[in-house]
């Protein structure tokens, strides 16, 4: 298929997934902010729950440029939800996704376009005050719409290349997001050893699990108190957790193997390497290596894979000799 078309589909689904992840993160932050919270220690201001969505998405400096001064929850919400000038706000993500879909009308199904179009028009009718009157309902709605679009895609689209690029976008974005949430939360959750096993600690870990829809799964699998090591195992290595790194890499590697067909491409090799790291990994090793270092390595790997996918498929740059060969073959 056309590289531009693949590019549009891939980024369409990445943006929808990104909006869903933003909703998940902000929802958890919002719930946590309702709890009686300890006063932040000096030097730990970044661990303010309202700073986390900014740290995780890498938007902290953009935010402070726009809202200088003390961090305020309503400003963070405004910035992350409906701010059209923030390219990672939920608003901007859905707008970008819908624009991509619009230019890909011929490639996606009518049902997909109608669903996303409707999502966009309803989202556009929200304003900040309307969200304030039902914050959690709003986040739930975003999540449901994202699920719905994935479902419509799954249920209506031909299993062709376009479909694979859509799925690839979803899992690339999800892998990146799960790794970031885990990394940042792990940092904030560890500073005060005295809290381990305390009520605050419990709520924080359970909030992290809830943000990736893994709370019930944790209970079911471990039937035990929440410990950092088990959380890490669940969200990194288990391949039956839909948002774990392992599950994401299973999907990504499989898709890239089909997309690369017989051609030897760097994207496939790199995905295989990342996949192996999870497929054959052990929790104990990860802890010994250092969870932060491990996740950093993974996030860097995903970043590199993003570049390779782009070079191989989406915005191809052909070396002169490659074109000549094809030109001669075609004639």
């Amino acid at each position, binding site marked *: 298929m056309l590289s531009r078309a693949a590019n549009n589909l891939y980024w369409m689904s990445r943006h929808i997934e990104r909006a869903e992840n933003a909703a998940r993160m902000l929802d958890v932050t919002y719930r946590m902010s309702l709890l009686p919270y300890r006063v932040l220690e000096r030097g730990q201001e970044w661990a303010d729950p309202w700073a986390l969505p900014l740290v995780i998405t890498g938007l902290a400096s953009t935010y402070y440029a726009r809202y200088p001064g003390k961090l305020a929850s309503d400003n963070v919400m405004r910035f992350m939800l409906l701010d059209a000038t923030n390219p990672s706000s939920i608003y901007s993500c859905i707008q970008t996704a819908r624009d991509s879909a619009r230019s890909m009308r*011929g490639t996606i199904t009518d049902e997909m376009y109608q669903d996303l179009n409707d999502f966009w028009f309803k989202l556009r009718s929200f304003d900040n005050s309307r969200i304030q009157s039902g914050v959690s309902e709003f986040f739930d709605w975003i999540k449901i719409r994202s699920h719905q679009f994935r479902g419509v895609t799954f249920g209506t689209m031909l299993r062709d290349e376009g479909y694979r690029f859509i799925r690839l976008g979803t899992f690339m974005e999800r892998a990146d997001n799960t790794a970031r949430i885990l990394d940042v939360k792990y940092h904030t959750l560890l500073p005060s050893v005295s809290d381990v096993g305390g009520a605050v600690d419990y709520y924080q870990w359970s909030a992290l699990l809830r943000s990736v829809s893994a709370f019930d799964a944790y209970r079911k699998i471990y039937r035990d108190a929440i410990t950092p090591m088990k959380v890490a195992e669940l969200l990194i290595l288990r391949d039956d957790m839909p948002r774990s790194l392992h599950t994401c890499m299973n999907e990504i590697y499989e898709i890239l193997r089909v997309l690369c067909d017989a051609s030897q491409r760097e994207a496939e090799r790199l995905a295989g390497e990342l996949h192996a790291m999870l497929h054959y990994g052990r929790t104990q090793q990860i802890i010994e290596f250092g969870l932060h270092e491990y996740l950093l390595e993974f996030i860097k790997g995903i970043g590199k894979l993003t570049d390779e996918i782009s070079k191989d498929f989406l915005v191809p740059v052909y070396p002169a000799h490659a*074109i000549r060969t*094809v030109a001669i073959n075609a004639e």
Partner: protein
Amino acid sequence: MNLPGKIKTAATHFHNEMYDGAGAPYFHYTAYADWLASRSSDFMQQKQKEADTLYARHGITFAVYGDEGGVERSIPFDIIPRIIPAAIWKKVSDGCCQRVRALNAFLKDIYHGQEIIKAGVVPKQQILGNKLFRREMQGINVPGDVYLHIAGIDIVMVGSETFYVLEDNLRTPSGVSYMLENRKMMMRLFPDLFATTPVAPIDHYADVLLDNLRAVAPPGIADPTVAVLTPGSYNSAYFEHAFLAQQMGVELVEGQDLFVTDNTVFMRTTHGPQRVDVIYRRIDDDYLDPLAFRPDSTLGVPGLFAAYRSGKVTLANAIGTGVADDKSTYTYVPEMIRFYLGEEPILQNVPTHQLGKADELEYVLAHLSELVVKEVQGSGGYGMLVGPAASKSDIKTYRARILENPANFIAQPTLALSTCPTFVQSGIVPRHVDLRPYVLSGKTVTLVPGALTRVALSEGSLVVNSSQGGGTKDTWVLEQ
């Protein structure tokens, strides 16, 4: 519904295509009139609402230039069909094909031997002095000698058997997606009508188009690759570009998706470069190739013209067809038919004054309030003066524009355009309509038995262009 007696006929001198002077339906409308009479006004209202909702939800939209609020709008669709009897259609169809054959011969001629100038039929200046004449095309042979792969011929009726060709659209005529979508919509809304009326099918349009495009691929290509080239999703006709690509099952490409190496055109695909042989382009000549035409064009493909000239890619339509649909060239079309085909024109032109000629200019300036004046290279209904509907100050302003460059304008009498019953808020009322069939050339010169009917939705308006608030109707050609 209470119909015939209550039809408003404010302007009785306009031919109503459904009802005769006594308010009785013409023969080809009788079955529909009976059906309509048995339906309540609520039922029709409901159906109209359903149609509007479906069009909006499916995003069947067009964009209006210079209207920031309405980046995407649904084109108004009217649920009352326009019905054309088989005999009339045959004349329209034969006439359009004849016209396109002559125009195609004209293009081949002016870019080669220019016999028509030598014979003194068309003045040299009319062609060589025309902005849309492409010197670069001289001496270039195009596959099958086909220049006009897709042509839209605008026709107006003024009586039950009298019609005129209003203009030829030979560059990138649009609107065919509405012809096809309107039919789908009508079949969905009123399946029972199709069961009882012998309406000629038009669904195979995209197949015929693809067949023709593949037939004009560069010689020696066994299995040619066709693509539709669009300026992008912000173009007013983007929906149509995407629609046609999808219907034909070919790629919809933008300039950035293509590149040229060794005079060969390739698409950038996820599996590497893929050769393209035929491009149905919906981009104007000027923007096709920054190396050959406008250097500031970002929509085009550098090197495309060189590839075209060397015969390694076919463009549909050919480059340089604008000189043939220029409104001042239009006046010579009947002569072209006689010159190239040795036939008498089946369809008549509207009598046209060329303001470049002093005596005609004088006449037109004295009768501005009765005439329609247009720019010779204008399209889309922009920049025209409808004399009878214009205010004194409009006429004054327009007069000044004409005097700046009279040769840039033509004038025609205000035609008594036929009307067709149309569903508006106040009920069913007559509104003016025109007709645009699409002639396809390649293997053969044909058209599918259907056309786009555009309707001027405001009372008394004669301007049917969608950019000027016009709507569309499904056009039924009866098979017997």
